[in-house]
C-alpha cells in the first residue's frame, strides 16, 4: 500500500501545475460570473457557469495522452517498468489522481454554480412547479453527472489505450493514436450493444415526471435503463486492465 501511495503522490506532483492552472482559470471564470449575477440575466450566468464542464473532458484527454508519453519522453518509463509493481498498480496510480481531479473539480463547479444561483432556481421552480420539481431536478442532475463522470473516465482510458497501442509503432504515433481512439469508440459502441443484452435483467432507475394537462397535473413514471451504465463500467474496467497489461507485458521501452 505504501508503494502505491508513493506512486500516486509522484503522479500528483507531476500533475501539480496543470491542476493549479486549470483550477485557477475555472475559479476565475466562476468568480467573474458570480459578480455578474446582479447585472446579467441570472439564467445567462447560470448557463455560462457550466461551460468549463465542456472543457474538462478535453483536459482528461490531454492528461491521458501525456500520462505515458511524458514517461517515454523523459526515459522515466525505465524507472516505472523496473519497479516491482504490477501493471495495474502503476496504471491505477496514473488513473486515480486524474479521475479524482476530474470528479472533485467538476463536482465543485456544479455545486458552486447551484449555490450562487439559488435565487434563479427558486424562481424557476416557482414558475413551473409541475414541470420541474426539485426532486426530479436533483435526480436528473445526479444521472447527468454520473454520465459525465463516465464520459471522463472513458475518454481517459481510451486515450491511454490509443497511446499504448501507438508505442508498438516507430513512426506516425500521433496518427495511429487518433485512429485507434476513433476505432475504439466505434468498437465500444458495438460491443456495448451486445453486452447490453447480458445486463437487461438489472432493475431500471424509475423517474417521476409531472406534467400539466387540461385535466390537472398528472404523474408519469419513466424508466432509465441501468444496463448501459453497467455495460460501460464493465468495458472501462476491462480497458483499465488491458492498458495495465499492455504496459507491463507487451510494450517495449
Amino acid at each position, binding site marked *: 500500500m505504501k508503494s502505491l501511495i508513493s506512486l500516486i503522490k509522484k503522479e500528483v506532483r507531476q500533475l501539480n501545475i496543470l491542476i493549479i492552472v486549470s483550477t485557477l482559470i475555472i475559479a476565475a471564470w466562476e468568480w467573474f460570473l458570480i459578480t455578474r449575477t446582479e447585472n446579467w440575466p441570472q439564467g445567462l450566468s447560470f448557463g455560462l457557469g457550466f461551460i468549463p464542464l465542456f472543457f474538462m473532458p478535453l483536459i482528461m484527454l490531454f492528461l491521458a495522452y501525456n500520462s505515458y508519453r511524458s514517461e517515454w519522453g523523459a526515459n522515466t518509463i525505465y524507472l516505472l517498468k523496473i519497479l516491482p*509493481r504490477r501493471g495495474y498498480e502503476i496504471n491505477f496510480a496514473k488513473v486515480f489522481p486524474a479521475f479524482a481531479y476530474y470528479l472533485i473539480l467538476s463536482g465543485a463547479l456544479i455545486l458552486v454554480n447551484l449555490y450562487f444561483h439559488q435565487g434563479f432556481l427558486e424562481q424557476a421552480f416557482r414558475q413551473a412547479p409541475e414541470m420541474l420539481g426539485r426532486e426530479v431536478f436533483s435526480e436528473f442532475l445526479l444521472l447527468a453527472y454520473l454520465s459525465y463522470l463516465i464520459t471522463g473516465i472513458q475518454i481517459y482510458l481510451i486515450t491511454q489505450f490509443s497511446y499504448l497501442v501507438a508505442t508498438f509503432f516507430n513512426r506516425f504515433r500521433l496518427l495511429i493514436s487518433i485512429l485507434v481512439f476513433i476505432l475504439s469508440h466505434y468498437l465500444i459502441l458495438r460491443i456495448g450493444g451486445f453486452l447490453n443484452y447480458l445486463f437487461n435483467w438489472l432493475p431500471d432507475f424509475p423517474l417521476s415526471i409531472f406534467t400539466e394537462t387540461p385535466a390537472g397535473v398528472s404523474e408519469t413514471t419513466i424508466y432509465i435503463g441501468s444496463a448501459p451504465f453497467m455495460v460501460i463500467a464493465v468495458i472501462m474496467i476491462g480497458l483499465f486492465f488491458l492498458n495495465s497489461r499492455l504496459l507491463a507485458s507487451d510494450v517495449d521501452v
Partner: protein
Amino acid sequence: MNENIIEIKGLKKKFPGVQALKGIDLKIPAGMITGIVGPNGSGKSTMLKIISGLIVKDSGQIVINRKNKEQHLMQDIAFLPEINHLYKWMTIAEMIKFHEEQYSDFSAAKAEELLKFMNLKLEQKINNLSKGMVARLKLVLVLSRSAEVVILDEPLAGIDPASRERILETLIGEFDSENQTIILATHEIIEAERYLDHVIFIENGELLLSANADDLRAEKGKSIRELIGEVFE
C-alpha cells in the same frame, strides 16, 4: 544460491529491419561478476533489457533463480540502464525516499553512506546534476538494494576516468558474492577487466563465447582486452 542464477534458452528478438538477438543460449553463474562485451549494436543492451522486463522477447526462455521470467517481478533484480531514467524534478532525497517506498530491500542508511562517498548531497536536484553525478547517483540507488541480481548497462559510459575508478571501487566494495551476482555490460573494459570473474562475448545478436575470465586468460595467454581486440576486429 544456484550454480547458475540466470539461464537463457533460444532468446530471440527482432526490431524493424534488424534481428537483434538470434537465439542466444546462455548461463550466467551465481555469485560472480559477469562482463558482457561486444561492439555497439551487438545485442548486449537488448538482452539485459529483456532480462529486466523492459523489452518483450519474441521467443525463448529466461529462468532467473529457478523462476520463470513471466512470474518474476523486479524485486530480485536491480537494473541500472545506460540512460538517465530518473525524475529530473525530484531532489536526490526525494528519489531515495521513492526507492525506499518501492523496494523492500532498499536501505536508505546505505544510500546516504554511499552518497557521501560519491560526493553527492541529498538536497541536490537531479536536473542540476552533471552526467557523471547522475551516473554515480544511479549506482547509489542500485547498490543500496540487496537484490540477488544486479544488472548494470554501461555504468561507466560518459564518465571521466577518475569517476570511473571510483564507481568500480564502490561496486566491488559493495558486492556481496555470497548473495549477489553482478552482470556488467561495458565498453570500458580496460578499467573493468580486473574485476570480472566471467566474460561473455556477443556480436550481431549471437553468443561468441562464455567463459570463466581466469580460465580464458590462462588458456589463451592473453588479457580479456587483447582477446576482445582479436575477436571483434
